[in-house]
């Protein structure tokens, strides 16, 4: 029983990190119809910002804020320079995906050129661990869960209780009609790209606190976030979060049943199965 609860606990904490990526992806994908795989690039750059700001400042909170700000800025830049051009060109969904993918590839190459591909530890932060009723709880896990809850509640209220959220949902449902009714879709998409990038930066900052920088880890986290968003369906916030928790549990369970080597394989398998079974898992291109 304790082992089962331990697996569930680990799964939920892993899912918390993935949820931050999933929500960011979901919001941008819904409003721009760009398969926003470049979210991995935002995550990568933000993690380096988090480490370098933390190195100079020594505060986790400041580092996370800096990472979130960097991600927001990059998200805006991406929307203005690339995604808006895709809208103008009326590019197909495949071309949009490849364009977004190329940003991730370029970012990975540039980062490897500047800082190398090796993981970097963060020696001035060390997560604190406590034992609670037989469970080991680390501060980094608590921060992840807290960040996911905070993001879920804040964005959930924003999307479902505000006028802005109404516009976001309208644009996500039918962007053409939204524009036809005179709403400035470009401005809305730019705002969404900023808001969606903030949880990604937060995730990068918290993960930097937990394990430092691991460029190779960005890819599986990105794919997990994307899969979680797809599982979440048309929901913009709650669906991706629940999908992320499911992914986290799958990964945790796989690590326990098989080994850590296999933890990503079921995620990819789940992605393929969902796409094949649920043909409309992805939104139709605009």
């Amino acid at each position, binding site marked *: 029983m304790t082992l089962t609860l331990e697996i569930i606990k680990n799964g939920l904490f892993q899912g918390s990190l993935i949820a931050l990526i999933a929500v960011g992806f979901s919001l941008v994908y819904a409003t721009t119809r760009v*398969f926003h795989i470049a979210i991995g690039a935002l995550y990568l750059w933000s993690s380096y910002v988090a480490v370098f700001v933390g190195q100079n400042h020594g505060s986790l909170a400041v580092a996370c804020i800096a990472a979130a700000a960097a991600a927001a800025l990059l998200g805006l830049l991406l929307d203005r320079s*690339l995604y808006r*051009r895709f809208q103008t*060109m009326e*590019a*197909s*969904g*495949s*071309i*949009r*995906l*490849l*364009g977004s*993918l*190329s*940003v*991730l*590839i*370029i*970012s*990975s*190459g*540039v980062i*490897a*050129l500047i800082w*190398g*591909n090796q993981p970097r530890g963060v020696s001035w932060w060390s997560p604190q661990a406590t034992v609670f009723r037989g469970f080991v709880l680390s501060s980094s896990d608590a921060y992840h869960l807290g960040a996911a809850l905070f993001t879920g509640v804040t964005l959930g209220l924003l999307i479902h209780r505000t006028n802005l959220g109404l516009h976001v949902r309208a644009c996500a449902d039918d962007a053409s009609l939204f524009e036809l009714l005179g709403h400035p879709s470009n401005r809305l998409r730019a705002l969404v790209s900023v808001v969606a990038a903030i949880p990604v930066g937060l995730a990068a900052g918290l993960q930097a606190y937990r394990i430092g920088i691991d460029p190779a880890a960005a*890819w599986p986290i990105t*794919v997990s976030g*994307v899969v979680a968003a797809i599982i979440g369906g048309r929901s913009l916030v709650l669906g991706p979060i629940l999908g992320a928790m499911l992914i986290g549990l799958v990964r945790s369970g796989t690590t326990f049943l098989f080994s850590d*080597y*296999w933890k*990503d*394989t079921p995620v*990819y*398998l789940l*992605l*393929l199965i969902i*796409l*094949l079974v649920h*043909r409309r*898992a*992805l939104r139709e*291109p605009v």
Partner: protein
Amino acid sequence: MEYILHVLVYWAFFSVLALSLDFAVGQLGILSLCHSAFFGVGAYTSALLVLRLDAPFWLSLPAAALIAVLLALPLALASRRLRHDALVVASLAILLITVELLKNLRGITGGLQGLAGIPDPVGGREAWICLLLLLLGISLWVWYTITQSSAGRSFRAFRDSPELAVSLGVVPGRTLWAGLSVSAGLAGVAGAFFASYIGYINPTVFGFDQSVLLLSMILIGGAATASGPLVGSAVLVLIPELLRFTPLTTPKVGAIQQALYGLALLIVCLWRPRGLMRGYRFH
């Protein structure tokens, strides 16, 4: 001279791979990100047969092609049901699953350590370049024969308008399966040759970077043309080789290569959608 021959060998390998990918991308309109998976399973099949069962290299070629063709089945199924970015994502998922299996079935594939000591059936760089130019010639002949045939017309009809093609009698399942079988089979054979030429393979060689590189070759050169894959592979094989003459270290060369591939892909997506040889434009 050895170095020039080595570069030519690499160009020939990638030209064959790019031509095989053109059946999926240029002829069927499937922007597949899993082509290196076919390449990889072909290489592993040949290597395992040669190393573990002492099979002759030439007998491992049809086996490599067959296993690669079987791996194309999920992609054919996905192509039947999905379009646009959903299909690209599905192909990516197939690639990731294949690479994970190659990495983690350590008892069979050697895991990340890979398979070493694959014997060279030919011997000598000059003999390899002749063999690969022959393979390239055969690939070009296959490409021309199929694309100029009724099968090729069916592929392109399905690419341009699946609904209209079906109404004109094109059977979608059979068309997709035929095109993807040729694509995967040719890639599998190229993989077998690659494994024997290099003498060592590991899963990282056949991963996501390789797939993006192959797709970039098609898009840069021009899809649905014979010269496009050859030009695209020449461009993307020569650039890394030119970087070797700079004082940069090998990891930095790898990083620059990666960034350049991504940049080339982005440029094609935004400004040169038909590629250098003015091939098919993806809508």
